[in-house]
């Protein structure tokens, strides 16, 4: 593991030629350039250069502008896609914006935009003024596509765009009602072919600038020839397939569709196998190609949070089925590009017994992740009982190299969850073909649309304690707090543990109903604002049905209600159960005052009295005693079954609630209306609700809405990421001052895994990651053994591993430049620690340390 680029290069310098850690000279040169690039402020498009498709276009006549304005929105969108490619490849704009370039060392050409999830995007506008106003009433605009689904890259590499265009032309002729859709797809695909051709020209231009005899000239000419051929025609070789995927990936991201890669090893292996068989590719050459691909996916990162740009608007990347302004925790998403690459797992068949899917490309992908110190792409490794041991060994070595790659997903649990959530609509073979998106969300690769929503478990406890109100705003303004749910019994009337749990469930049921209700009401509202013709070409079901992705065209409609803050909730419930209802160390009303005053910080000092704004009076001293008691209780995620079982019960209750509320008569009319609207001759419209547990990077954002919790956490402080054991509270030092302990909260993976071995984990088809911090000296053989345990089902559904000593984090905060390769798992991807805002850094430092 290397903390900074200087150490990394020094290590590589010490290696002999052919060492497995040593990339090719070409890759080293590219890597050296992106290290420099990461340190600089990324260039951005000027929004005025991007402009509008027709409004204020002086280069168009009035008649031409009028003609464009009259076109259907979907056609205008596809023309905007083309226009975007024209803008970003314009030499003048490209120089200012860094939007289009070819490096002589590149094998894989293309340029990703700087549009990370946190920074937002630019895209050519195409709506009329009236349309824009109408859309804005629903918080939508041209910038509202969310991407966030797994495209079918296999289609791109096995068919070729011309063939898809031909299909569209034929289908349009046969289905006049869908002509606009097919035309929009055709125009979008032609735009990508144009985009690729621009790179071919640029490669030739750059080659001409090189001195005679430079070996890179022939490499660039070959790259240009590839881009003349693909993506119009299907790739025939491994490198053509990689280039095809990358240019399409760039095209998606430049046109507001932030999407992942999918099951790369499965897509590429046939090309690899054929090329090797034909003697035109060696494993070393294939590894170099993949390394180049990795670098292209990682080149847009930045190391300095002062370099963050904010281009997000109220309408950016709107979740399907969501209503409201689009505000999320951008500050934690600086380098999140949603570039998930899924590998391993099982073959997508309906056989009774699974067949391991790992192959040579699987191993090469892990190698690229191990030896290249990047944050992106995020590698997601699917594992199961039959995962070969060498894959797990490679994974362990890769994790200990420090990049928090790969994420491990347990196929047996995830596939069971997808099948249960699919309620008969998702076949076994489809479930076995899942791939990760966004952070790690699982979905049927290339055939699903997807969205999600949150239900906060700690908030449910607040509402149960506090008559349906949240605790964060309790005080002089809102008195009891912000009212949001049923007014349930007051704390003095909650006389038993069972009654308390029943109240929690009442609030949970309402939350699930609200999620489903909002989804039903708003589904399909994007089609007249921001259709996705390009992405629709690569989502199964759309071309077949003649419907855009935003118009119900996908084969599967996967929506994931996510329960968040479970470890905070379980820890709190355990404290309440034990201290209030079992040992009766304190009363629920005392606890409520302690929490509603944020452990006494919100007590009002007046005329020598110290009192809460509302609720029974409890002295500061007593509140301190209560907090100490709460802090000292056992916590979730360390193999304490008495706590863990509370988390399992919460999950089971949640999954039951999701499925029961969805089938409730309350929603049937709306659901039937959607089905009537979207059923077609190819697909029936069935919503699959696949629960999961996840905060992603929103462990601070989610915590910011919460009041103090009975686990001892203060109001507004961060919660744990995903389904991880909770961090040490913000007001407690991560490294104790005793000079002995490495961390204030220490555990072992063996014991922690016990907290996840429960059938409830098989119900979370969208996954429930446990994010672990390991010390840098964690023995590789022991990590291999733990990964084997996990693959065999003796752990949760997803696990991630950040490798960094507590002291490393502390030093990195003091001397960032010396830790510019220190990377951490953000709940959904890998981030450079020094790029994080201090509050995020503090949360990572406070995550428990799991030692061998």
């Amino acid at each position, binding site marked *: 593991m290397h903390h900074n680029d200087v150490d990394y290069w*020094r290590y590589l310098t*010490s290696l002999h030629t052919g060492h497995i850690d040593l990339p090719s000279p070409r890759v080293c040169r590219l890597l050296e350039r992106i290290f*420099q690039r990461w340190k*600089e402020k990324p*260039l951005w498009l000027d929004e005025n250069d991007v402009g509008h498709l027709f409004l204020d276009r002086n280069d168009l006549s009035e008649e031409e502008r009028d003609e464009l304005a009259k076109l259907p929105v979907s056609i205008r969108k596809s023309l905007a896609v083309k226009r975007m490619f024209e803008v970003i490849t314009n030499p003048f704009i490209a120089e200012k914006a860094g939007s289009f370039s070819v490096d*002589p060392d590149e094998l894989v050409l293309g340029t990703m935009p700087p549009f990370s999830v946190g920074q937002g995007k630019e895209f050519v506008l195409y709506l009329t003024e009236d349309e824009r106003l109408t859309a804005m009433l629903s918080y939508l605009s041209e910038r509202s596509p969310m991407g966030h689904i797994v495209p079918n890259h296999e289609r791109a590499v096995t068919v070729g765009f011309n063939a898809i265009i031909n299909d569209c032309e034929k289908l349009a002729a046969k289905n006049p009602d869908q002509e606009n859709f097919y035309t929009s797809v055709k125009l979008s695909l032609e735009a990508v072919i144009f985009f690729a051709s621009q790179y071919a020209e640029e490669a030739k231009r750059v080659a001409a600038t*090189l001195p005679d005899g430079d070996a890179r000239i022939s490499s660039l000419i070959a790259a240009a020839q590839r881009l003349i051929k693909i993506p119009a025609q299907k790739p025939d070789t491994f490198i053509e397939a990689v280039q095809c995927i990358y240019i399409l990936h760039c095209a998606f991201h430049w046109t507001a569709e932030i999407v992942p890669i999918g099951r790369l090893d499965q897509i590429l292996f046939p090309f690899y196998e054929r090329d090797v068989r034909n003697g035109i590719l060696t494993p070393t050459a294939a590894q170099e190609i993949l390394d180049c691909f990795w670098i292209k996916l990682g080149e847009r990162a930045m190391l300095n949070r002062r*370099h963050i740009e904010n281009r997000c608007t109220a309408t950016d990347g709107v979740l399907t089925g969501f209503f409201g302004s689009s505000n999320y925790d951008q500050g934690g998403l600086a380098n999140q590009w949603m570039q998930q690459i899924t590998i391993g797992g099982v073959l997508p068949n309906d056989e009774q017994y699974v067949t391991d899917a790992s192959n040579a490309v699987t191993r090469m992908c892990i190698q690229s992740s191990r030896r290249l110190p990047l944050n992106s792409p995020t590698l997601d490794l699917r594992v199961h009982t039959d995962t070969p041991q060498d894959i797990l060994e490679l994974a362990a070595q890769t994790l200990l190299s420090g990049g928090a790659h790969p994420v491990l997903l347990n196929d047996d649990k995830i596939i069971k969850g997808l099948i249960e959530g699919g309620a008969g609509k998702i076949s076994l073979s489809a479930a076995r073909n899942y791939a990760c998106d966004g952070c790690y969300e699982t979905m049927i690769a290339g055939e699903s649309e997807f969205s999600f929503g949150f239900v906060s478990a700690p908030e449910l406890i607040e509402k149960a304690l506090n008559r349906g109100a949240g605790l964060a705003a309790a005080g002089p303004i809102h008195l009891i707090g912000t009212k949001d749910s049923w007014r349930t019994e007051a704390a003095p009337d909650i006389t038993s543990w069972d009654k308390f749990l029943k109240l929690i469930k009442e609030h949970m049921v309402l939350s699930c109903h609200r999620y489903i209700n909002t989804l039903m009401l708003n589904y399909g509202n994007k089609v007249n604002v921001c259709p996705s013709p390009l992405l629709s070409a690569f989502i199964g079901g759309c071309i077949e049905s003649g419907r855009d992705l935003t118009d119900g065209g996908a084969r599967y409609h996967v929506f994931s209600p996510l329960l968040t803050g479970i470890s905070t909730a379980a820890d709190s419930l355990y404290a309440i159960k034990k201290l209030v209802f079992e040992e009766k160390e304190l009363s629920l009303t005392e606890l409520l005052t302690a929490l509603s005053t944020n452990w006494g910080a919100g007590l009002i000092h007046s005329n020598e009295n110290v009192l809460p704004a509302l609720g029974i009076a409890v002295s500061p001293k007593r509140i301190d005693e209560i907090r100490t008691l709460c802090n000292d209780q056992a916590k979730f995620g360390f193999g304490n079954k008495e706590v863990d079982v509370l988390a399992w019960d919460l999950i089971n209750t949640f999954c039951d609630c999701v499925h029961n509320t969805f089938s409730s008569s309350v929603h049937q009319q709306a659901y039937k209306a959607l089905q009537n609207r979207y059923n077609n001759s190819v697909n029936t419209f069935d919503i699959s609700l696949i629960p999961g547990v996840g905060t992603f990077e929103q462990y601070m954002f989610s915590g910011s809405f919460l009041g103090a919790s009975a686990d001892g956490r203060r109001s507004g402080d961060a919660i744990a990421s995903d389904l991880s054991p909770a961090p040490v509270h913000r007001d407690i030092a991560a490294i104790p001052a005793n000079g002995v302990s490495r961390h204030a909260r220490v555990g072992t993976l063996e014991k922690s895994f016990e907290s996840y071995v429960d059938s409830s984990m098989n119900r979370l088809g969208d996954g429930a990651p446990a994010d672990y911090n390991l010390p840098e000296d964690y023995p590789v053989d022991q990590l291999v053994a733990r990964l084997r345990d996990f693959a065999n089902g003796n752990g949760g559904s997803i696990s991630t591993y950040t490798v960094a000593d507590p002291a490393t984090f502390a030093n990195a905060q003091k001397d960032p*430049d010396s830790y510019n390769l220190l990377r951490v798992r953000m709940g959904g991807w890998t981030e450079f620690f020094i790029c994080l805002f201090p509050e995020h850094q503090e949360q990572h430092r406070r995550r428990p340390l799991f030692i061998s």
Partner: protein
Amino acid sequence: MIINFPLPQPIVNGPFQTGITDPQWPVSPPEIILDDEAAKEQYAFERAGRIDPQNFLTVVTANVNVDTKESLCSLFKSLSSFVKAQITRLPDDNHIPVLKEIPKTWRVTITVGLGSLLFITADGDDRFGIRHLKPRWLRTMPKVTGDTFDPSKTATDLIFLISSDHPYVNISIARALSQGNWGQQGIKEKRIIVKTIDQGFSRPDRREFLRFDDGIDNLSNSKDDELDKFVYVTQSDGEPAWATNGAYLAWRKIRENLPFWEAFANHEQEKMIGRKKDSGVPLSREVSGPSGMAPVYPNPKDKADGPLTAHIRKVQPRRPGTDLFGVADLERRFLRRGYPYFDGLETGTDKIACGLLFLAFTRNLRKQFEWPVESWQTNPDFPEPGTGIDIMYGSGVLSNVSGGYYFCPPSFMNDKDAFLGMALFKH
């Protein structure tokens, strides 16, 4: 034999800024020695295609005191006029005694470098909207072992390298810059704020305070035009188009602890440097190049060719073949144009403050300067684990007390309308 050739003059009409690779001795020996083999050999070793630095150097660093692209452009125009006037100005004979001979020229050059902060500040602010034009490898100099200063704290917007054959010429120009007397007559210029001024001088024997010949194996255009090839950016370097014919500058003020150094015996000093003190011949068993001044290290880990921590082995290991980037070690050389400095007593002590004003010009800052410094010179595990860093720094003889990275734009002397960094303002 002593032969007095006419001194080479600054090249002001070429594509490159003056004061980098000029004044430069012609590659071919002068006619006067064509029949003298010994003199030709001497010429080939000492002069052919090499720079002939002026006698004095003054390094001025400064920040700009403007806040818009337009005002920066205006500033650069004004500065360029001043620089052009100073370079082309003839020696003044006012108040010179009649019988006192003064040369026809003091060979004045003023080389201007731009710091990375002009393009983007350390806080990430694009002050002038030109960050997309920043030369690829220009950045704030990273801190390395041996630095006693924080380069991020001393980084400046501009550097002026004032060279001439008379110290007062340099002083006069430096004063004008620092006191605001460089612009329109009668108006005190406040658009630049001078931060530091350092003065250096050269000795005819090229030896500096350590008593070794500095730059004995420096680049020369007599070797396949390597001087120009190693110093100036070309259009195939992946740099912004405007940067072609510019050069990177790594500048350091290197403090030399002379009492400590002089306590070492000559043979110990030779092992630390890696060359013989009197002749400059390398300690390696094999040598190459004119007069055998280039060492040969067939095995970079073989101590028979000199200690592995010897300065010249740590800054240029000369390994056969290519490295992990496919680059030969010798492709990582740069032009050295150093001058000794003497600052008198260190404030408040009885210690002499002296050393070297180190200037390295490169075509690729990362490849030719930063990589050798980080991966060889200050890497304790190069060429093998436990070797230690360059002993000149490791022992405490040398320490860096100031410095920075800059980019010297192409010439603005070759057109009357041209000015410093003109292409930065074309859009």
